[in-house]
């Protein structure tokens, strides 16, 4: 099956700093989502981004599908950004997605005040 690798595994920042999280995947995809898992365990959709670039406030994401990676940028980090960030992909099965996501191991982000 498809492999998803996220880096770094852990990241510690001071409030106000910027960061970049990376997701590499081993096969072509037609669904890529970034999630934030908050301290209560809720997985929150950040982006649906199988290709291209999107921005939402202080967060932005870029997926380069031909090179099989995606980046999540967090600018001016806040303590509320702490948690685990997951990248999840659905392989491109001949152009048909069956909606099944394979998750990476996540990046644990801690933002200190």
């Amino acid at each position, binding site marked *: 099956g498809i492999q998803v690798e996220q880096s770094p595994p852990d990241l510690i920042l001071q409030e106000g700093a910027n960061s970049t999280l990376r997701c590499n995947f081993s096969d072509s995809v037609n669904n890529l989502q970034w999630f934030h898992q908050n301290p209560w365990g809720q997985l929150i*959709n950040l982006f649906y981004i199988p290709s291209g670039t999107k921005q939402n406030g202080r967060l932005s994401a870029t997926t380069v599908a031909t090179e099989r990676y995606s980046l999540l940028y967090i600018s001016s980090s806040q303590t509320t950004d702490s948690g685990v960030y997951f990248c999840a992909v659905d392989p491109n099965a001949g152009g048909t997605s069956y*909606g*099944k*996501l394979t998750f990476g191991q996540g990046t644990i982000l801690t933002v200190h005040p």
Partner: protein
Amino acid sequence: EAGVAQSPRYKIIEKRQSVAFWCNPISGHATLYWYQQILGQGPKLLIQFQNNGVVDDSQLPKDRFSAERLKGVDSTLKIQPAKLEDSAVYLCASSLTGASFSGANVLTFGAGSRLTVL
């Protein structure tokens, strides 16, 4: 729009006992998924339903796990008998459809049900 509802939020049982989790997806979402998340790992798909039919249950331990979605809306995941290694968060997700067109297969997750097996 109401989100994906799950219950109970927490459950503690002894090994060999049984437990059931309930999920109500977002209204109109045809596809429903159950994921298992063990502490420190990413979620892993257990089973996927399209309406009331099973699309994929290849990773469901069928000797102890069962799931149903009888009327194509809400779903129940059951574990019987539970083992220590079943301690995890069970996440339910839904999407408009499992088919491939833009935005249709965006998954939205519920808050999860945390199971502790003693």
